[in-house]
């Protein structure tokens, strides 16, 4: 099979954005990967290896081979990400590719890994399509997805803002935005909300004022920002500047929702995120054993708490290594088989299932809110509710995920 590790080492490819808008997220992912490699090789304090329910890993690398890694820059562009992944596969002999901070890139790289016959452990990708219409037998996602955000958020929104609301969506114009808009709209509409309008905004629009001002003219009383990263920071800042949060519509307080939160990005929005609801995959303030162990080893090494990006990347690496160990082989097909239907715990999100049908993890989802009185620059979000996995689980043939097929695993 492709890039079978021959010598005493095995090479993993960490493909993260090092330039462009998500470079900081990429840097945090890379930190997590380095930590994971340390732990796999038996250095450091072992981190979540100690809390992981599977005990197949022994801290001596993977199957006794020392873990080595190469890094590359996705630039958050499909083309560049694929080129970078290709060079890791062709030149450096990487047997697994992981990382990334955009669904567009994840889908593109996943396709490449499928063709090249290596495993792809997706990093930050939240679009339904990654494990929906674009799913691939060689690709796996630990991160949650837009549907899950909707399913977790909607009840909280209904509880706080009532069921008689009119929502206005601003949506980043690409796969992630579309699926998130669809998911949130569906989930909120099921609870009685109306969707007034869905407006697509170009990625990296900068000033969003001309998309915000029309909101003032409608009778919408909730603004849903399907934006991430810099776009989220800007659209939220703009919305607040235009006084949306002080506005009363039909006797109701106008509300803003950011369905997908990230602490790194929340910082850019400063004061503006206070009190705003959203969802997140993981947060460092969780107090389960796994999270604590991870925060401790990451925090000790780097001096600040890890982001959700770091968390999911770290976990993906461990999960891959563990699957290899359990399968006893680096063969992608064997690894895939070991991951499919795998149930585990102790990695921070409670008991989790890697579903065989679509290679998506099912676990608890956090509903969070911008904290009013942060104690430090990292303490920006507070967990409002932990939505149990069961509530966010959907059938593999759910229409929002239809249209694709895993195909067969490709070993190259």
């Amino acid at each position, binding site marked *: 099979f492709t890039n079978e590790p021959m010598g005493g080492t095995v090479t993993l490819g960490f493909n993260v954005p090092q330039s462009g808008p998500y470079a900081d997220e990429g840097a945090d992912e890379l930190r997590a990967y380095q930590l994971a490699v340390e732990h796999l090789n038996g250095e450091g304090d072992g981190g979540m290896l100690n809390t992981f329910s599977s005990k197949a890993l022994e801290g001596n690398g993977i199957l006794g081979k020392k873990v080595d890694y190469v890094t590359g820059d996705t630039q958050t562009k499909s083309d560049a990400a694929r080129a970078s992944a290709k060079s890791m596969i062709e030149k450096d002999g990487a047997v697994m590719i992981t990382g990334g901070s955009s669904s567009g890139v994840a889908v593109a790289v996943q396709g490449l890994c499928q063709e090249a016959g290596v495993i792809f452990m997706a990093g930050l990708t939240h679009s339904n399509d990654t494990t929906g219409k674009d799913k691939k037998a060689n690709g796996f996602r630990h991160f949650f997805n837009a549907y899950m955000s909707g399913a977790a958020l909607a009840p909280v929104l209904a509880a706080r803002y009532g069921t008689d609301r009119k929502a206005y969506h601003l949506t980043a114009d690409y*796969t992630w935005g579309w699926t998130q808009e669809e998911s949130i709209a569906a989930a909120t509409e099921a609870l009685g909300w109306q969707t007034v309008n869905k407006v697509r905004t170009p990625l990296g629009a900068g000033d969003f004022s001309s998309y915000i001002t029309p909101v003032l003219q409608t009778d919408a009383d909730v603004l849903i920002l399907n934006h991430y990263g810099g776009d989220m920071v800007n659209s939220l800042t703009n919305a607040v500047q235009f006084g949306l949060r002080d506005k009363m519509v039909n006797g109701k307080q106008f509300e803003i929702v950011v369905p997908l939160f990230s602490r790194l990005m929340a910082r850019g929005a400063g004061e503006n995120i206070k009190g705003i609801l959203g969802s997140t995959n993981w947060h460092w303030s969780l107090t389960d054993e796994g999270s604590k162990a991870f925060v401790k080893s990451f925090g000790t090494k780097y001096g600040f708490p890890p982001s959700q990006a770091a968390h999911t990347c770290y976990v993906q690496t461990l999960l891959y290594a563990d699957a290899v160990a359990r399968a006893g082989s680096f063969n992608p097909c064997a690894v895939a088989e070991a991951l499919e239907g795998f149930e585990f715990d102790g990695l921070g999100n409670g008991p989790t299932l890697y579903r065989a049908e679509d290679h998506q993890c099912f676990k608890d989802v956090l509903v969070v809110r911008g904290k009013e009185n942060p104690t430090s620059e990292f303490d920006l979000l507070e967990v409002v509710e932990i939505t149990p996995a069961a509530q966010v689980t959907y059938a593999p043939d759910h229409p929002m995920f239809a249209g694709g097929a895993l195909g067969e695993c490709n070993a190259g």
Partner: protein
Amino acid sequence: MLGLNPKDTKFLLIVVFLTLFTPILLQPFAAGSELAQFNGGYPDLMQKIAIFGIFAVGFNILFGLTGYLSFGHAAFLGIGSYAAVWMFKLLTMNVIPGILLAMVVSGLFAAAIGYVSLRRSGIYFSILTLAFAQMCYKMAYSVLTPLTNGETGLQLTLNDPRILDGTQEGSSLPVTNIFGLAMNSSYKIEALGRIFTFNTGFYFCAVIAILAFYVAIRLFRSPFGMMLRAVKSNQQRMTYTGLDPKPYTLAAFVISGMYAGLAGGLLAAMDPLAGADRMLWTASGEVVIMTILGGAGTLMGPVLGAGVIKYLENIFSKINEGVLHDWFSFLPDGLEDVVIWVFARFTGEGWHLTLGVTFMLVVTFLPGGLIEGLRRLASRLRNGSQKRDKYDNPDPEHRPDPGKRVAGE
């Protein structure tokens, strides 16, 4: 030979040699050695260099000869890619029809965009082409998603029709091929402690690149090439000499658009995904920069520029601190950290810095680009470093002859 004068023939043969032996030339360091990181002899990079070489050579036909600086050539690259991928989706995975379609479609777009943009010159022309390219990009990114699959990029899927290929066995995606020979098939040889990869896709690109290069030489040396230089030099004189500069520039624009389309088609043939980012203005800027970096108006310059930029992008971005630690572990600890800190600024996530600094250094100290630098180096080697002392040794040879004295004296 081949309609070239002896000097050009020699030049072409050197290019052929360099191209065909790329897999060996780019693999100078032994596998496993510390410097192996700098090896570039793997298929993806070699393909990219060949393909972007074609792109830049084509761009240079327009820019180097006529001086019209298009800031939207990436649009044609992108259009070529989309056309080729659609061919793979609809008709066949054989790359030939895809590439032909790519050239035709981008040629048509170039004709339309060129016809309009060439009504202006100078910076106004540049901005018109930029505007068209940005429009293509924005539309591919959003409104035309059904055709382009937006940000993710147009991909193959299992249920594409692929009419000519017949029913597919198995449920994995087919690969691009040329009459059955898969583009991603490689033949590896281990020799001299190095692993040499001979990849079908690369050789396919290489042969096309050589052809494209040959056509470019012919074109540069042809009367048509001279007319294009005349456009750059003095359009006014040209019109009063009875020549219409418009069709000449338009022809150059379309030819270079087709080169771009060819490059785009090849990109898709090597890796069947067409992303909208290929059409972004930075991509147009990249080819401009490749051309100037190598040496605009020279034949080999753009190829060299393309090679350098792609190499930097692919190799430098992958040198992370871990690698640096391996390299400098022999240094004492404190010093090691300092050295690594410095290097880390220029590699890995700092690779853009290397790129920026390279641009500045080359253009400041080597006006005329890398080719000019090489030329100077060569003449320095040939003549030794003789410092010209203008006063002690005034050289009348350098002075052009005065005009022939004629009747009336």
